[in-house]
């Protein structure tokens, strides 16, 4: 049972906070990804938990016990480093057995546990090679085995897949998720790749400028971002600056003269808000005469159409001169003309609009 509890964690370099009052809890057996750009504080967070950085204030607790007074080598937290940090002068077997040897584990037990771990990551045949003789993916698996052989209850991952090509990454990601579920360790996984963050996570912690800006399940983060920057971090989106007007005593949205109706509640006296719409929630329709005044239907001209096989990403220039992004799945497009220059209608379903402050 290992809950990882981070409370008010702050790290300042001079006056500049690299980590600013971050609080969240990773429950036992949960995999939480920390998503952010470089400089968002996600690496500082991970290094503070590991003990490589001493936070200015705040606490890191495991099952209620603070880690901060424990030296690095007594925290019992596994880490898979971004560059793997394999010892170049040791073989794969020696690398994986390092932590056990340091713990003075008996020779036969050490051998048995190392063998089992190598078997698990499919590297038994490479046991006597040096890290430099392995491919990137194999090195990554050695790093994973080296962390897991110590049976840590918490494992930290510092962008472990970032140096691998995309195809390999997908496979390793699924393998890791499966392994984590089966072994049941609690995991904190730092990444700047939003696809990776969402695909792996039970919950995603989004970081920006040293702060935790949103924490929740991937679906929630993707569909209900708490702020414009979170929306932008998680894939393509339309962020439409709208004026808040009033009609029949209820607030309504107006996007450059185009009325929009949304299910999401609109703050009454906000003046200006941002309407957030994912491109895949928009629908391309045949153009309709005089649509300009109809709420949620935009008429415009296709200015670019990028074909991706399963879908196309279409940029439509609306009548008011603003671009709008539509991701259209191909079975839904059947016989529509979406070639560049074509006039199309874009319907915005009212439930697809989220209002951001």
């Amino acid at each position: 049972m290992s809950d990882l509890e981070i409370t008010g964690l702050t790290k300042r370099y001079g006056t500049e906070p690299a980590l600013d009052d971050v609080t969240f809890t990773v429950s036992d057996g949960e995999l939480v990804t920390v998503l952010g750009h470089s400089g968002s504080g996600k690496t500082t967070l991970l290094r503070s938990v590991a003990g490589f950085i001493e936070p200015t204030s705040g606490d890191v607790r495991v099952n209620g016990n603070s880690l901060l007074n424990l030296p690095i080598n007594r925290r019992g937290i596994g880490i898979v480093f971004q560059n793997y940090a394999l010892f170049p002068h040791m073989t794969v077997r020696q690398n994986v057995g390092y932590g056990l040897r340091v713990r003075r584990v008996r020779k036969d037990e050490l051998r048995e546990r190392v063998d089992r771990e190598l078997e698990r990551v499919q590297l038994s045949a490479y046991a006597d090679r040096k890290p430099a003789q392995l491919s990137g993916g194999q090195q990554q698996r050695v790093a994973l085995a080296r962390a897991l052989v110590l049976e840590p209850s918490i494992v930290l991952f510092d962008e472990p897949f970032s140096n691998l090509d995309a195809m390999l990454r997908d496979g390793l990601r699924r393998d890791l998720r499966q392994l984590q579920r089966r072994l049941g360790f609690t995991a904190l996984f730092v990444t700047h790749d939003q696809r990776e963050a969402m695909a792996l996570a039970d919950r995603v912690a989004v970081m920006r400028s040293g702060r935790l800006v949103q924490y929740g399940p991937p679906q929630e983060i993707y569909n209900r971002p708490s702020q414009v920057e979170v929306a932008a971090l998680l894939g393509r989106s339309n962020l439409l600056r709208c004026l808040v007007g009033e009609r029949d005593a209820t607030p309504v949205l107006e996007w450059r003269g185009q009325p929009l109706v949304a299910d999401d509640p609109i703050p009454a006296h906000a003046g200006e808000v941002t309407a957030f719409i994912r491109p895949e929630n928009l629908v391309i329709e045949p153009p309709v005469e005089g649509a300009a005044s109809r709420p949620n239907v935009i008429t415009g001209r296709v200015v670019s159409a990028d074909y991706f096989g399963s879908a196309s990403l279409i940029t439509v220039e609306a009548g008011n001169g603003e671009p709008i992004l539509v991701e259209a799945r191909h079975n839904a497009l059947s016989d529509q003309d979406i070639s560049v220059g074509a006039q199309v209608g874009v319907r915005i379903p009212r439930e697809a609009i989220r209002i951001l402050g």
Partner: protein
Amino acid sequence: MASDRTLSPETRERTTAPALSGGERGRSGGRRRSRPRAWLPLLPVTALYLVQFVLPLAVVAVTAFQTSAGPGVITSDLTLGNFRKVLTDPFYLEMLGRSFVLALGTAVLTVLLGYPIAWALARGRSWMRTVILVVVMTPLMTSSVVRSFGWMVLFDPESPILRFFGPLADERTGLMYTMPGLLIAMAHVLLPFMVLTLYGIIDRLDPTLEHASLNMGAGRVETFLRVTFPLTLGGVFAGMLLVFATAISTFVTPKLIGGTQYRVLATEIYEQSVQLLNWPLASAMALLLLLIAALTNFVYASLTRRIPGGG
């Protein structure tokens, strides 16, 4: 067993691909375009080198096999007598042994003193690095005569620092004309070479390796012994060989600090050639010194190629 395997087949399949392409890259990288006129700019320096170095060296090489018939007189009878004398006469053997011990001792001492300095230089805060760099580099810009004179003052029996070296010092002369004194002065003179060599290696060592070791439960000392030191061993060897080769041919410091008691190869060559005018014997010793330097160089080159982190 199969249920315990966690990697999907597609993952396994793909992991082999980079290894193959890596080999491919290695081969094409080895190809080099020939540059037919690259040697042209080297012509002046080559000419100078020929006149200044190769020619005199050839003269020395020939002289070493000739016979001395009194001071400044050489007969052209070819002989191995000069080498026989140096390698069998107890006086010269002792001198050779002393040269070796001094050079080796200096190398060991500079490692012990230089490693912590190089470490601080590579891993310290930036102001500390600047201070250390200045302190380490300044001796290099000072003449070794001046540096040795400095030690002569400090090694005087009346000198306050002698209290720290009490048991090592001589009653009459202090640390002057003693092996410990000679070692200290030599180590000081050659320390920059060791520090700079080690610094290059330590600086290139990825600190996350040490983090990884600590993270897996090793203490600082164990991390140093199992990870840091083995990975910088190449630098330690390289530095030792560099210091050894320089120390064994050093002249000024042994001359000034060692005096007449502590004759070494370089001072003996000087004495034989300039004062006793026994040029054939001096030449034989010079060739021997050259051979030692060449051997050290050879070992240096082959070691730095093989040891991780030492290249």
